[in-house]
């Protein structure tokens, strides 16, 4: 039987659906997090070059991946909202931005904490580092633009255009290591090459990436629910829902 997707594209039904899904993702995120950390700290061996410092990789790389991935997802939903005038997808895009910005910040923070012991400096003006910084600015630009506009529908559309235009930055970040010869490490996980890392290390990283993925979904859903209520605060279903929640 085909699921009726249109049913869930109305904010009201999405609200309750999301409410049911959040616990699942929270639990999944916690499990993956614990497993990932266990592998990261207790299973993965010490790196013969970098010593224990490499253990930063278990947050650095997932954070860096999520920062780029979430931007694309955000731009995608924002674009859908712009093209088909669906309110829900724009709200999802708005909800993703802070989480994406947080991961970008974490990638920068952990990267520079890693850089100090490895490269001897907190920061270099290397292409990848710089473009990651630009990504942070893009997120902040998106959020400030939306914050500067009072009318939510207008904010959605304006943000969508900015997000779509900013997508060009993603390939630049991703390929920057190949385009410029720089300090930063190239991609060591790719589809056609065998991974160059110790397998346990790789597993730890991948599981941590899964954890951050689940976490992002959970946060996005939670924030979307709040945004839905904020925007629809005058509709009948919200006041009904509110009464129900008070009654409980």
């Amino acid at each position: 039987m085909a699921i009726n997707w249109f049913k869930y594209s109305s904010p009201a039904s999405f609200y309750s659906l999301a409410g049911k899904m959040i616990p699942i993702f929270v639990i999944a995120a916690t499990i993956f997090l614990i497993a990932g950390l266990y592998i990261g700290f207790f299973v993965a061996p010490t790196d013969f070059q970098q010593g224990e410092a490499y253990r930063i990789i278990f947050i650095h790389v997932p954070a860096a991946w999520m920062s780029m991935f979430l931007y694309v997802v955000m731009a995608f939903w924002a674009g859908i909202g712009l093209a088909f005038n669906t309110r829900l997808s724009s709200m999802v895009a708005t909800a993703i931005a802070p989480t994406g910005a947080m991961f970008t910040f974490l990638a920068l923070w952990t990267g520079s904490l890693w850089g100090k012991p490895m490269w001897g400096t907190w920061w270099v003006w290397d292409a990848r580092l710089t473009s990651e910084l630009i990504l942070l600015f893009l997120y902040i630009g998106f959020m400030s633009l939306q914050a500067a506009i009072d009318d939510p529908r207008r904010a959605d559309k304006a943000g969508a255009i900015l997000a779509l235009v900013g997508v060009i930055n993603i390939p630049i970040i991703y390929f920057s290591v190949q385009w410029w010869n720089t300090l930063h490490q190239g991609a060591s996980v790719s589809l056609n090459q065998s991974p160059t890392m110790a397998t346990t290390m790789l597993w730890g990283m991948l599981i941590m990436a899964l954890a951050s993925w689940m976490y992002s979904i959970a946060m996005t859903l939670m924030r979307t629910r709040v945004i839905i209520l904020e925007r629809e605060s005058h509709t009948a279903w919200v006041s009904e829902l509110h009464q129900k929640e008070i009654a409980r």
Partner: protein
Amino acid sequence: MNWESWSDFFSMGGYGVYVWGSYFMTIVCIAGEIILILKRRRTLHKHLGLIHESTEKEIKNETTS
């Protein structure tokens, strides 16, 4: 098992500041994000309560007058 003792674990082969600095900031960010969302929700529900009251009053006024 990689670690001999807790202090070994915390020193991270001399890189403790960097490794734990990273993990600490991650925890701060995650906790901060969750707290911000919950706070936003609480203020929203307060706001909804106000709206709810005012509409109820209006309805009452309309029925009495």
